[in-house]
């Protein structure tokens, strides 16, 4: 395992700038997950590290050496593709040993490496089969096995579980966690699945529009998002955002008026020294912060337009007459509420929830987070 360092990576496709000077350092054995919306540049970055895309400028340092300009096979990386990319005309063993064969390794060495990887991934009985005879999960294991046999410095995963069904995805996620513990390999993992990101990553890199919006541990990003984009991107259902204005500010408190809310709210200052009276802000509330029937802080009374009973939790989308969320998940301004228990409420019923002012995120006019809920931890 090796370290990986990205220094000011820029990738242009003509006039379009896909990567806008991104930099970060990955420690040996670290599991880093790249997440972000479609087209944000995460796959481009991964492919650039692999050498499948040439970068316009910057340095990619693996194990202390700049690998820009080297062929993909000479960079010390192995990649697992979304569609497995197994060679259909080769058996599983041939697929897994192909890179070593191309590197001119001896037959015995190849067999040994394939056998070891097959044992780790529990696919020894499938070694003589062709890929078309395998299930989706087995194919993905073979694809991972192909990467393991190369003993690379860095593993690159490009949405490896997105073609699997939910149950298999969950199983493979646990397998990947186990594999990382066993190999202690340096892994860069691209996904759009938040569960994968939150459960697998040592650190998450949230990408947006070709740059890194924030880098940090999963809980750090969830609890202390640097800006509105990260706050909205992590969490499902996404955070509820409301337009608001600072009515008055003194050294101890700020008073805010949320659009559509009846009363002004007084929030104790919590690292938000920059806020001044008259400024436009945005309030963010996580769906799990709503308490049924509570009356402190901000009260949300409305009709449940959608009720999703998921067994261990219930999601409600509340249509409040005046309080409408901005850029909401429902696109209709409904307030997303999560109750961590089974809930007997039905579609069309009226409910009232309260949210303590302590649970508010506050974002300034530029979208930067200026106040976090007081109950959250700062890092993992």
């Amino acid at each position, binding site marked *: 395992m090796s370290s990986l360092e990205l220094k000011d990576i820029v990738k242009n496709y003509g006039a379009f700038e896909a990567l806008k000077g991104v930099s970060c350092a990955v420690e040996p054995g670290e599991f880093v997950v790249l997440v972000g919306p479609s087209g944000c540049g995460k796959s481009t970055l991964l492919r650039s590290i692999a050498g499948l895309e040439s970068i316009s400028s910057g340095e990619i340092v693996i194990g202390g050496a700049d690998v820009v300009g080297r062929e993909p096979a000479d960079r010390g990386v192995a*990649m697992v593709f979304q569609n497995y990319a197994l060679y*259909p005309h080769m058996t599983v063993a041939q697929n897994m040993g192909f890179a070593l064969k*191309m*590197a001119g390794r001896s037959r015995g060495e190849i067999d040994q490496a394939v056998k070891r990887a097959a044992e780790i991934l529990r696919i020894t009985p499938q070694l003589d089969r062709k890929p078309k005879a395998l299930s989706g999960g087995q194919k993905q294991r073979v694809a991972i096995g*192909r990467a393991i046999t190369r003993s690379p410095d860095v593993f690159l995963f490009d949405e490896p579980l997105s073609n699997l069904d939910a149950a298999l995805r969950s199983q493979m996620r646990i397998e990947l966690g186990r594999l990382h513990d066993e190999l202690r390999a340096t892994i860069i993992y691209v996904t759009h699945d938040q569960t994968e990101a939150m459960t697998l990553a040592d650190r998450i890199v949230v990408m947006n529009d070709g740059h890194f919006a924030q880098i940090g541990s999963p809980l750090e990003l969830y609890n202390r998002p640097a800006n509105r984009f990260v706050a909205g991107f992590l969490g499902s259902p996404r955070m509820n955002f409301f337009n608001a204005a600072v009515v008055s500010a003194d050294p101890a408190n700020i008073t805010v008026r949320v659009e559509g809310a009846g009363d002004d709210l007084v929030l104790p200052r919590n690292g938000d020294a920059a806020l001044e009276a008259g400024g436009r802000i945005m309030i963010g509330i996580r769906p799990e912060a709503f308490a049924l029937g509570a009356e402190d802080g901000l009260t949300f009374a409305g009709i449940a337009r959608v009720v999703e009973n998921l067994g261990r939790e219930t999601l409600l989308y509340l249509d409040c007459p005046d309080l409408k969320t901005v850029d909401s998940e429902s696109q209709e301004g409904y307030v997303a509420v999560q109750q961590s228990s089974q809930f007997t409420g039905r579609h069309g019923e009226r409910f009232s929830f309260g949210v303590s002012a302590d649970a508010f995120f506050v974002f300034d006019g530029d979208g930067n987070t200026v106040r976090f809920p007081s109950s959250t931890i700062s890092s993992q």
Partner: protein
Amino acid sequence: MSNRATLLLGVSYGFMSLWSLFVMAPVALMLAAAFKSKRAIFLDPLGFPDNLNFDAFQRAWDTGMNVFLLNSAIVTVASVAVIVLCSGMAAYVLARSPSRMMQLIYLLIVAGFAVPVQAVLVPLFQMISAAGLLNSRLAIILPYAAYGIPFTTILFYAFFLDFPRELEEAARLDGCGKISIFFRIIVPLSGPAIASAAIFQTVFIWNEFVLALLMLTSPSLKTLPVGILQLQAEWTADWPAIMAGLSIAVVPVLIIFVAAQKYFVRSLAGLGK
């Protein structure tokens, strides 16, 4: 199924049956004529033969058909190999290159498909003669290859456009260069395209007459279509033997076509891309 759909289906089947009859009739007539006597072929040209008389086949074979068959096989295999190899590599590069120059080259190759061989017979003869290749197998292998490459390149091009790029990328990560990717990954997975290209060109080259007649005069080098011509003299012709010779000539191509029919249809279906 509605009445309209049934009617449409009936009309389609009827049309296809008529078309099949139209295509198969000359083949059936050829086969029937091969079993007839010289007299019967003129007295009852459309009738069935009285008995299965193999004399015409014997006379045709005695003209040296085994040599003609061997020559045709050598010329066909060599030409098809050159066509498949050159077209495959060219089409792969053309399908993967974003360069405008490559697109122009592709257009030129497609345009080459439109030049009829009859239009270039004289300059072609002069070139082959100047190269000292007249009356050698290369005298027809090279022109056959040149004429086969445009169509086969178009066919391969359509196939490679759909070839999964992730396999090539995986191969690059596994240490393959461009040539290795082509021969170790692309070629083994291009069976359907190679088979249909080979069948197309085999049928064309196996039946080609004009170039072979022009370039080859030595009896030991003649291919089947030219060799069968020996059964036709200036004032007379052994029509049953000619038909028998043609029937024999058809058999190898027919076997190849039946064996690889599915590739043929599948690849043609992808030509519109």
